[in-house]
């Protein structure tokens, strides 16, 4: 665990974050490719996870370590789960420094780098999630659910990270305003269903997208995936 080697970033995801999903990216493509290379050189992805027993209470989901994950939405997402994995991942501070530098020298490029970084941290989470899934070969797992989604408060971040010892192990902290720092970082809960428990219908929609708050598609009243 801890350091993860990342050698590529899915280009279609980068283009999607840039608003070019399903369109001809034109000169954007070589720019995005060069930004991906620069981003990968600056990133040092780290991640960690830990499983806890959990139970549903009237206030929300309570983990065996004592942490309450308040609200109804996560409990609904984890229906049929008696175990939950907390995970945290970060691209690390080198990316923050790269973005700071590039914002000064070339704002346009920094926009593309932002999209590369968002795609990269999602990729890190996907790979981490795959490792977790391998640890539970005969169980079905829910998709990732992060503080700030639905009614799960984002103010949980500090306690969430402390439980994973993320400040020491990953250099990942939260500010007083519960912003994750380094900025390109993710925390998430994954439910582990009891054997035989039926999976409620789930889709990967805006609700559980980390860009939901800044999404240009959503603001325009559409989504990036027409089928949703």
């Amino acid at each position, binding site marked *: *665990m801890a*350091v993860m080697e990342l050698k590529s970033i899915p280009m279609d995801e980068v283009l999607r974050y*840039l*608003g*070019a999903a399903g*369109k001809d*990216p*034109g*000169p*954007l493509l070589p*720019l995005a490719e060069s930004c991906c290379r620069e981003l990968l050189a600056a990133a040092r992805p780290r991640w960690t996870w830990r499983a806890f027993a959990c139970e549903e209470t009237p206030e929300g989901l309570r983990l065996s*370590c*004592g*942490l309450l994950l308040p609200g109804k939405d996560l409990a609904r997402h984890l229906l049929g789960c008696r175990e939950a994995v907390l995970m945290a991942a970060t691209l*690390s*501070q*080198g990316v*923050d*420094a790269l*973005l*700071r*530098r590039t*914002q*000064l*020298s*070339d*704002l*346009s*490029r*920094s*926009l*593309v780098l*932002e999209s590369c970084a968002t795609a990269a941290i999602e990729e890190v989470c996907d790979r981490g999630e795959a490792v977790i899934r391998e*640890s539970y070969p005969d169980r079905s797992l829910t998709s990732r659910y992060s503080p*700030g989604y639905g009614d799960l408060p*984002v*103010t949980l971040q500090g*306690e969430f990270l*402390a*439980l994973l010892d993320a*400040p*020491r192990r*990953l*250099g990942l*902290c*939260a*500010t*007083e*305003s*519960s*912003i994750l*720092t*380094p*900025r390109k970082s993710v925390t998430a809960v994954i439910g582990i269903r009891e054997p035989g428990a039926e999976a409620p219908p789930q889709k990967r929609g805006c609700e559980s997208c980390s860009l939901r*708050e*800044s*999404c*240009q598609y959503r*603001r325009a009243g559409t989504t990036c995936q027409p089928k949703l």
Partner: protein
Amino acid sequence: MMDFRSLLQKEKFILLDGAMGTMLQAKGMPMGVLPETLNLTDPGWLLDIHRQYLEAGAQVIYANTFGANPYKAGDCGYSCEELVAAGVRLAKEAAGGKALAALDIGPLGQLLEPTGTLSFEDAYGAFARVVRAGAAAGADLIVIETMTDLGETRAALLAAKENSSLPVMVTMTFEENGRTFTGCSVPAMALTLTGLSADAIGINCSLGPGELLPLVEELRRWTGLPLVAKPNAGLPEPGTSRYDVSPDAFAAAMVRLAELGVQVLGGCCGTTPAYIAALREALEPVPFVREQFPVPPAVCGPSRVVTLDRVRVIGERINPTGKKRFKEALKNRELDFVLAQGLEQAAAGADILDVNVGLPEIDEKEMMVRVVKALQGVVELPLQVDSSSPAVLEAALRVCHGKAIVNSVNGNRETLEKVLPIVKKYGAAVVGLTLDHRGILKTAGERLEIARTILEAALSYGIPREDVCIDCLTLTASAEQDTVLETLKAVRMVREELGCPTVLGVSNISFGLPGREIINPAFLTLALGAGLTLPILNPNSAAMMGAVRAWNLLSGVDKDSREFVARYGQGAPSAPAPASSRPAVELDYAVEHGLRTEAAALTKALLETMAPMEIVDQKLIPPLDRAGVSFEKGEIFLPQLIQCAGAAQAAFEVIKERLAGESGGTVSKGKIVLATVQGDIHDIGKNIVKILLENYGYTVLDLGKDVPPQAVADAVRQSGAPLVGLSALMTTTLGSMERTIALLRAEGLPCRVMVGGAVLTPEYAAKIGADWYARDAKESVDIAKGVFTP
């Protein structure tokens, strides 16, 4: 029991304890509990753990105060002072006078600016509280450990030294690549903490003792201080978090570190009294040998060390002297302009950046601190802080996270007595100007004598010879032609007789003469030949950098001409076309296609025949409007729109530079204050709004990110701006936005407010009293047009 400093002086190993967290978990500490609260709820556990380590042989035990700071204590029910005092008292009680009790200080749990929002000053304040509480409770020494940010480490060390007289040991945590999470390197840590006069430094946590070996090898070459190693019991096994090295294997690996000269040894995560007992036994037959290596002369930023064993270029561009546009930028607090100068020089090959922001109209100290902090967030290079005011120099050194150079002292007794103690306290190098109350003396011999006075004074304060950089002073050839060769002679004499590094502000030689670009490289080459090691020059000048590179080749420093060939040989990156040649396109084409260099060159040419405002209205705005339409139609994407904006901005910069040279001229359509609200650090949206507003001719006062409400109100009052733009990207920072607007209203400022940001809605904007909700950057321009239309 002997005190810690005396123990260090003895030629013997000092044994520390092992892990605290591991032991507390074994005792059944509940998860999610702040371990330091156990000092008050379960003191018996702590006494027992301490005693086990003492029995194992520990001579120094760490009190259970690692996380007892105001940020981590939060709402645990106890103040950080209560937790610290209880922890130190328990360690003292257990030690019973037979061992030393250390106040243990860990990271605050939040990242410092600029990645996080915690300021250096607040971090210092938090550490100072911990230090005072620990010293009052009777700690024998202070340990600062598991640090990853050199800035935070400096805050803790300064707090320890300024709020107690206790010995301080500092250890940081590295990964196998020899870097901390924040990119701090082992040599940078060693240079910086040695300079700040820690009592012992080293490495803890991180890795197992075996993996620490190469890091310790490197560490000992960069410091003369006693060394510390407190590694983990190997690496954690995936899934279980158990560590993979047994007590005996741990002890055996530690012996190898001891043989490298590590004097202070213990264990971190995963180690127990069994590890410490094994370590004590293993060390018994090992003689302690203190081997001193000559530390290379060097300066550094947190992640970049620059050795002074060859010619190094100090970039001179961050300095308002004789630069109207730079002065303007300082007055308007355009931090980005200043930072861009730093980035440009770094890209051009500068090794060190001089930072001078002295201007009569501004608060130099406040500006210096802002610039130093921001600059080290974007460039890795070591800094040379440049001011005539000792107070400004000290303020700069305080926030400069590395080993800096102070520019400057001179032969005046009074200056030496004021500035050298500051240089020593912060472990900096210093530039000594060879002048004194008599002014600049003509002959080389006289200047050498002043250099000798400066060097002797520095040595008397404990500043080493290699950190005293002598400036023999370049006088202008036009006014004092006969002194040029004397200056070169003085450089040679200083090198030969004093052995100090030498500094010269090279470009001054040609002041008042035509053809400066001919004279400067010629003088530079002569000076390098005479022994100049630290030329201060404009690294953006290809001829000057070429002269330095040629010197490196000719003097044999650039072995086999490798660096030179890589720079100038076939396949080397080709130099950009000179900006003076007029491109074959029109300005509006250049803007529409995002061609920045061309846009700047074309604007320069157009200014010969067109009025600035005409250029803005006829040549810049129409292509921007067209790009805006293409963007809205989905024909181009946001980065391309911003590329156009960047080209227009380059054109604006040329116009501004021209107008700064004339008096009273402006193309500004009005002033707008922009800020990302307090607590929020997502500022790319605000920066997009800024560039578009600037494109349309508005003067933007950009206050940056994480801006307190009062700072917004003050800026509005001082500037009289009738429009304020605020951004927030998080639901948790919308409250800051509301407070900022409330303050603007409460102070009765006649401004209107537009707000934007992903989580905002028009309804929420109205609710918190904003005048407008701006959906995107384009809309903020429309709002501005409405406000500023007569």
